[in-house]
């Protein structure tokens, strides 16, 4: 962010054209090129972002399948969203997913990054081991986890079973049980903590060792050094990552679609899955649009809350 204001004060590369008396005013010329080169984004922003977002608001006022029927219904869909029990179910599921996955994944990623940064041998090997699961994602991974969660002969219960049986406890039936299905999707998300880990590891390496030496002279324990030096300096990175994770986690879709199709008994119905079902399965595109806006507002609220909270815990002074 700081770099924006910084660039404002610097002169543009073509400002010297100002002096050489060309017929076209140099700054105009530079601006011309600026708009020309930025035009892919400007056009894309209008056609694929602003346009659709406004259109979405309007589509939300129609009962339409985009083919046979288009009836104006006003704000009915928007009112519906608030009283629809399925939307509420999807909202609660997605909220539980987001509020568990984001903090736990952040802590897990930090822990792994700090461990790997202790000068251990074969660091790049371990880094790869932890990072690789986050490179692969999508359908293949969902199929794999569906197999791992298989209650009788899956990997998970083949490990848990022998531990739990002596206590007369049956291992959970994971994605086939209403109470364990959502936790299953959550546990599976921890496997992807390596993505954030890599970012934190890069951040840790950027912390100058002189700071640790200073802390050492002050007699800080390694525990204190972590909380007084490492963590504060890492907060901008953590913050950036948490914001992106909040947005990403609210859009969870593939796992829910491939592994459980939202079931059993809507236990894993997520917001985007519900929007998909409403629009692209049941062809209520108007209602799907209204739900999408509803979700957008919710995500926006959490992002704004995160941004607001930043001033109290994110340290922007760089040493």
């Amino acid at each position, binding site marked *: 962010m700081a770099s924006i204001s910084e660039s404002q004060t610097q002169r543009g590369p073509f400002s010297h054209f100002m002096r050489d008396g060309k017929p076209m005013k140099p700054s105009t010329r530079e601006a011309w*090129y600026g708009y020309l080169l930025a035009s892919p984004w400007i056009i894309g922003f209008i056609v694929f972002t602003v346009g659709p977002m406004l259109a979405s608001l309007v589509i939300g006022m129609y009962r339409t399948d985009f083919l046979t029927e288009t009836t104006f219904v006003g704000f009915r869909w928007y009112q519906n969203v608030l009283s629809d029990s399925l939307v509420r179910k999807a909202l609660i599921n997605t909220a539980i997913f987001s509020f568990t996955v984001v903090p736990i994944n952040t802590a897990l990623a930090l822990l792994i990054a700090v461990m790997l940064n202790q000068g251990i041998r074969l660091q790049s090997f371990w880094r790869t081991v932890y990072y690789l699961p986050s490179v692969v994602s999508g359908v293949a991974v969902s199929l794999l986890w569906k197999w791992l969660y298989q209650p009788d002969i899956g990997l998970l219960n083949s490990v848990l079973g022998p531990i739990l049986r002596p206590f007369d406890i049956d291992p959970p039936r994971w994605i086939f049980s209403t109470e364990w299905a959502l936790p299953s999707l959550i546990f599976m998300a921890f496997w992807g903590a390596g993505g954030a880990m890599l970012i934190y590891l890069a951040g840790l390496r950027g912390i100058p060792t002189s700071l640790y030496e200073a802390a050492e002279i002050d007699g800080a324990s390694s525990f204190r050094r972590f909380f007084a030096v490492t963590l504060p300096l890492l907060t901008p990175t953590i913050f950036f990552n948490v914001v992106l994770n909040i947005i990403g986690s609210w859009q969870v879709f593939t796992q829910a679609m491939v592994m459980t199709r939202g079931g059993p008994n809507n236990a894993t119905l997520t917001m985007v899955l519900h929007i998909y079902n409403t629009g692209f399965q049941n062809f209520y595109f108007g209602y799907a649009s209204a739900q999408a806006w509803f979700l957008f507002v919710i995500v926006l609220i959490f992002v704004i809350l995160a941004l607001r909270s930043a001033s109290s815990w994110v340290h922007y002074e760089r040493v």
Partner: protein
Amino acid sequence: MATTVQTGTAVHQAEQYGHSRLTETLYRVLLYGAVVLGGIVFAIPFYWMMRTSVMPTTQVYLFPPEWWPERFEWHHFKTPFAVFPFAKFFLNSTFIAAGSAIGAALSSSVVGFSFARLRFPLRDIMFVVVLATMILPEHVRLVPTYLLFVELDWIGTYRPLIIPNWFAPAFYVFLMRQFFMTIPRELDDSAMIDGCNPIGLFWRIHLPLSLPALGVVLIFMVTAQWNDFLYPLIYIQGVPNYTVALGLRLFEGHMTNNMQALMAASILGVLPTIILFFFAQRHFVQGIVVSGVKG
């Protein structure tokens, strides 16, 4: 290198404050124990995937499950290709990923350059908007863009998956702009003395220097498109046009009692991204440093 220095100070500090060598050793043992144990937990799903894909049918469904295949059956890797046109799926995914990545790299580098180097009214406001769209959830545009592509008669083609990426996706604009900011301005001056206009400056100076950043954009975009499921699900029609992701899901429906073939297909499905990662590991890390840490 920094890490070795830190370890040095840790040991030094331990001695200084009278921690015994034993405490230090114990700490190292616990640390390595945690790293190895965690590593095993993270790696085991991959192992289970591979172990399943080569097991004989009689062994896969045994209870309790067994860890090591009694013999290796590689023919399960052929099954996906025999049942569905999986080779075609790979081709389709490659086409979509490559088409999107090239477009994203070209457009976002041009736009990133203009944000980093040219001055024009509203530029900084526009860049703030770029940052804002980075945190915009995708799904808000799901329905209206679908309507747009219906109107354009693009449903059933790959255009809805590829073309939007030719219009400078926000994250990559941010990444390229951050990269261009690090190129010394002296280079600009010398190019201008040679009479370069901004396009020449971009083409001759900045583009050749930004190949590492372009690599990052290409890798990220290819991986994202390869793994994508929602958009192909909405826009692609007809099995021969399926991507690998759609093909895997289709395959699952037909192979409920052939777990080996399903896992073999999944391995093949994730293999390209893993290979890409190993070949481009340095770029991966660098892209993350540029995008993540400087945020």
